C-alpha cells in the first residue's frame, strides 16, 4: 500500500527506544519485521534487516557501556528504501581500528568473535558508522529493489 503513488506522504518515521536487557533486541526485530512488511519487502530482505538490527543492538548492549541503558532506533521509510538508525549514548569506539574478521584466523584462536559490524555491512545496502566518546550511531539502509512485476502493483507471494 505504501508504494502506491498518492496514498500517503513520505517519508514516514517510526521510532523505538529499548532498554538494555538481554533478548529485548528480539522485540526490536518484531518492529522491524512489521515495518519492512508494511513496505512490502520480501522475506529475505526482512530477515536481512532483522539480522543487521540484532547485531547493532547487541553491540550497543555489550560494548556501549551506556549509563542510561537505552538504545534508540529509528525506522525511516521512503519510497525507495528503508533506513534504520541505531544510536546509543555510550562510550563509543574507534571505528577505523576495528579489524575485518577472517575465518581462517579464527581457527586456533580463542577469540572467535568480531563478526557483527562486518555482517551489518554485508546484509545492508549501505552503512555508515559514526562513533565518539559521546556515543555511537549506525545508519543502515536497505533498498527496495522490486521486480517490475511488483512495481505494477501485483501482490508479491512471499513464503513465511
Amino acid at each position, binding site marked *: 500500500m505504501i508504494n502506491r503513488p498518492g496514498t500517503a506522504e513520505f517519508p514516514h518515521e517510526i521510532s523505538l527506544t529499548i532498554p538494555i536487557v538481554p*533478548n529485548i*533486541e*528480539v*522485540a526490536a*526485530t518484531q518492529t522491524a519485521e512489521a515495518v519492512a512488511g508494511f513496505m512490502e519487502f520480501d*522475506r*529475505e530482505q526482512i*530477515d*536481512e534487516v*532483522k*539480522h543487521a538490527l*540484532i*547485531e547493532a543492538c*547487541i553491540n550497543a548492549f555489550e560494548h556501549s557501556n551506556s549509563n542510561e541503558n537505552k538504545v534508540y532506533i529509528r525506522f525511516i521509510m521512503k519510497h525507495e528504501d528503508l533506513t534504520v538508525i541505531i544510536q546509543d549514548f555510550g562510550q563509543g569506539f574507534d571505528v577505523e581500528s576495528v579489524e575485518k*574478521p*577472517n*575465518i*581462517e584466523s*579464527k*581457527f*586456533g584462536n580463542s577469540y*572467535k*568473535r568480531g*563478526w*557483527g559490524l*562486518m*555482517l551489518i555491512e*554485508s*546484509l545492508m545496502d549501505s552503512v555508515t558508522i559514526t562513533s565518539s566518546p559521546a556515543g555511537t550511531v549506525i545508519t543502515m539502509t536497505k533498498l527496495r529493489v522490486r521486480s517490475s512485476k511488483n512495481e505494477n502493483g501485483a501482490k508479491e507471494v512471499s513464503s513465511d
Partner: protein
Amino acid sequence: MINQFAVTMRKESEYAVIYTDGYINNLGGEKIAEVANTLIGDGIYKLVLNLEKSTVVNSIGISILIEIIEKLQETNGKLVFCGLTKTIAKTFTIMGLTQFAAISDTEELAIQGL
C-alpha cells in the same frame, strides 16, 4: 516465545543430528555446544545441525558454532548444516564458514554429505 530455546538430538551409531528451536544467541549457542561436546565425548564426530526451527541467529551464537567446527576438526570430524533460511545461509557464506562446514538443502542430503 522470545525467551525459549530448545535443542534435541537423534544419535545414530556413526553420526548424530542436532535440532534447534529458537533464537541462536550466546545462550542458544552454548546449549548447542553442550550437546555437541557430549556427542564428541562419546566418540561421535559426524554431526548434522538442523536449524529448520531457528530463523534468527546472532554473531555471538555463530561464533560458538565455529568453536564446535574447530573441535570436530581436531578429531577429523565433520559438521553439515541443513534447514537454513536464505539469510542464515547467506550469513554463513559471507563469513566463509561454508569452507569448513557444508550446507545441504535437506537433512537426508546432509547425512549423505557427512
